[in-house]
């Protein structure tokens, strides 16, 4: 057995971001029924069509069964034992950062979120990139910056509840158009009870002047969080969206079932990047977030492009398949993923590329790293429909095993009904090469540094797809996640 494996579990690291902010919460009673759905809708002063949408989703959800095909195991979830609405108590929405609860600001500071007006990353001077942050604290967005700069070019970036109020036509037109109400068990649940999330609309021909970013936090005990994100890029528009997550430490498992919908018209580009670092549970598999997410983008227009990049290090259970429906001619779908699991984490993640349009192309690069007693599964689908003349897909899935008590699994589905479409898939599973380790060690690196270096190299193809400021964070995150698992 390798020395790497012997030191597994030798050290255990606490969750660096595990703290809880004490803010008075406005909680709905536990449980889920039609009244709760009505209550959520009423609290948010929603129009009738949205209430009807929620009720329809709830009715569908009640008839559905929780899916069991993923390689994850958990005790049954009692959906009646959760709060479906939690909002920090406040009078009116804050007008500026000064009005934001200082407790919250302190917490964001601990997390290192660039909420300040000129949010900048270390090392970048003056003509530094600007990032707009729509921070989500539990279920309600508390502060949105850069609104003005964005509105100047016509970009709408706001909490989805605000969008329902201010841009009802846009929301009604697109909400649920990519992920229908009864798409799956968790998306139906989300459609019934979602409380907040982000809405983003990039008008025709506009290149969004900055990266858009949302930090999600799950804070109150026993609240499930059901975010809803909707991004629409009109013809020729261009947007890069960042999503990052941390959550405080606690024992009870928390359910998170978000839905993200992306719509790209002719020549539009949407780049969606995620760093997911929710509490994975302790070294004994106690606690942690259940992350059951539906993310899907549709390339409606010709030459449109949707690119998903994710770095998944957190959550006790991840069930997540960011997908692209490639309708437009010559549209492009991309999926770049790094998933790290340690201790008792279970990740079942991958993508779907549905090729409909002529000449559509897709690229899948997935890197799975398993350590401890974790299980890491890539599950993906590439489907070529008869109309997808000349379509192309290339898939590369690599798994790295650290220690002999974890599992790495690859389950790709390839379905082609067009002879002119080409699909290529390759996958490998191996451990860290002893020779590479030896090479690094004899040049004076500690075993841990050597492993980090090799892991970063293994993930480089994906990390380079992240926006710069995220890439730095993601590299650190990989190192922190694997602390105690290696050397």
């Amino acid at each position, binding site marked *: 057995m390798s020395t790497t494996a012997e030191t597994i579990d030798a050290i255990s690291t606490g969750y660096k971001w595990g703290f809880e902010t004490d803010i008075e919460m406005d909680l709905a009673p536990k449980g889920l029924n039609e009244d709760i759905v009505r209550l959520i809708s009423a609290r948010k002063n929603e129009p009738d069509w949205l209430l009807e949408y929620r009720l329809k989703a709830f009715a569908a959800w009640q008839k559905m069964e929780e899916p069991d095909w993923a390689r994850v195991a958990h005790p049954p979830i009692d959906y009646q034992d959760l709060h479906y609405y939690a909002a920090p108590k406040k009078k009116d929405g804050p007008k500026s950062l000064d009005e934001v609860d200082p407790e919250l600001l302190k917490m964001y500071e601990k997390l290192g979120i660039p909420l300040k007006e000129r949010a900048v990353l270390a090392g970048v001077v003056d003509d530094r990139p600007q990032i707009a942050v729509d921070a989500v604290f539990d279920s309600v967005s508390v502060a949105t910056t850069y609104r003005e700069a964005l509105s100047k070019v016509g970009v709408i970036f706001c909490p989805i509840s605000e969008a329902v109020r201010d841009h009802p036509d846009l929301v009604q037109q697109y909400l649920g158009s990519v992920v229908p109400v009864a798409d799956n068990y968790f998306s139906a649940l989300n459609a019934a009870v979602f409380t907040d999330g982000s809405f983003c609309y990039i008008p025709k021909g506009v290149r969004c002047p900055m990266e858009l970013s949302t930090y999600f936090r799950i804070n109150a005990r026993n609240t499930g969080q059901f975010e809803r994100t909707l991004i629409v890029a009109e013809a020729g528009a261009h947007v890069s969206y960042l999503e990052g997550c941390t959550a405080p430490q606690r024992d009870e498992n928390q359910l998170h079932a978000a839905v993200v919908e992306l719509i790209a018209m002719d020549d539009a580009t949407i780049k969606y990047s995620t760093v997911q670092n929710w509490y994975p549970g302790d070294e004994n598999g106690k606690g942690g977030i259940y992350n059951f997410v539906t993310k899907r983008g549709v390339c409606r227009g010709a030459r449109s492009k949707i690119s998903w990049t994710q770095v998944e290090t957190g959550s006790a259970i991840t069930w997540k398949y960011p997908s692209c429906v490639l309708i437009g001619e010559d549209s492009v779908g991309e999926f770049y993923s790094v998933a790290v699991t340690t201790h008792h984490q279970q990740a079942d993640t991958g993508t779907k590329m549905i090729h409909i349009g002529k000449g559509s192309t897709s690229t899948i690069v997935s890197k799975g790293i398993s350590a401890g007693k974790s299980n890491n599964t890539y599950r993906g689908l590439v489907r070529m429909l008869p109309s997808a003349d000349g379509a192309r897909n290339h898939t590369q899935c690599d798994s790295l095993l650290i220690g002999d008590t974890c*599992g*790495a699994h690859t389950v790709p589905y*390839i379905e*082609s009904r*067009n002879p002119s479409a080409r699909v290529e898939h*390759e996958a490998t599973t191996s451990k860290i090469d002893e020779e590479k380790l030896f090479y690094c060690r004899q040049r004076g690196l500690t075993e841990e540094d050597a492993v980090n270096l090799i892991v970063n190299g293994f993930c480089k193809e994906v990390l380079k797809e992240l926006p710069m400021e995220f890439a730095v964070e993601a590299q650190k995150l990989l190192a922190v996640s694997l602390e105690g698992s290696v050397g």
Partner: protein
Amino acid sequence: MTAITRNAGAQAGVDGFLACYDALKDALPGDPGVREKAAASFRLLGLPGGTAARRTEAWKYTSLRSVAETAFATRVERGFSIDLSASTATFSRFAAQAAFGPLARPDRDPMVALNTMLAEDGAVLHVPADTDGGVVRIDSDSHGPHAFHPRHAIRLEAGARLVVLETATGTGRYLHNAVTEIDVGAGAHLTHIRLQDESLDAFHFATIYADIADSGTYDGFSLVIGGRIARTEIHARLSGKNAVAHMNGAQLLTGNQHADFSSVVRHDAPHGSSRQTVKNVLGGRSRGVFQGRIEVARDAQKTDGYQMNQALLLSPDAEIDSKPELEIFADDVKCSHGATVGALDAEQLFYLRSRGVPEGEAQAMLVRAFLSDALDFVSDETIRSTLENSVGAWWERQAA
């Protein structure tokens, strides 16, 4: 997940098999307890896509509805003939002892439950230790509207060798549902070549279980050309150190054929090696399915697993569904798989045509080249040329 509506006609099919069992059971050889259990499993599992209440992952791409909806005549005498002229293997008939082996899983696999419930005959082959058993041929030629469920068993003692060539042909609509249990002893070597050239109206299912001991080799190759709906399902377990499994194959389909090649190789001991190359060439409105899983248990360190699966679509109405899976619990392993799907390369075609090769011939040449990666694994030249002839005949047929 939505439950599939139970289909009355299909249920009648399942009931038909069960009624057949009720009528025959007193006359069936072997342990009635095993039969009863299998019947209970079959009642529960039903026929996937026909009556099974839920879709099962193992039968995701293959529906047995048309099997369930066909009325088959019941009793068949033998369903196969055997040629031992070039072999020293001991042969006995399943009907004589009806000993069910420990490898088959009627509790999991519906077609195996059906076989275990109704199997009447089959070839039981045995090669003693350190003996070369030569070549055995098992041929089945069916003309019927009947259903038959042969139960074969092959046992190689330590250091034994054997080549088994199975062929299946026929006319009309019938159900050929075979189960083969294979025991490869330490250092033994079995070459198992299968040529499935059934009637284009027939249903063919072959489920093969192989257990391979220390340094034993199972070298399997299946050429699938016939059948309206066909499935080759191989479960290979590498239970001994340094065991080797090859599960190669090619499926050539046309018309409205549907053929499914599913395999699970389980590495349970260290230093095992598994190799698999499966090719699909699909014309007409045919549908090819490949499902291959490599499982590596915790103790199976130093495993080397490789799997390649490629499909050529010759027609706009053909479909390939491919699912190569890796399930790995040991860290010091080398496992990889690859899959490609596409049409004949236009540039290669152009190259051949520019040198005066007629289009049809150029296509045939490229298809043969595509298949040679897989066929080259058949080392016995006589057998390989038999298979190549079948490939040639298939090409003529699909081009016509």
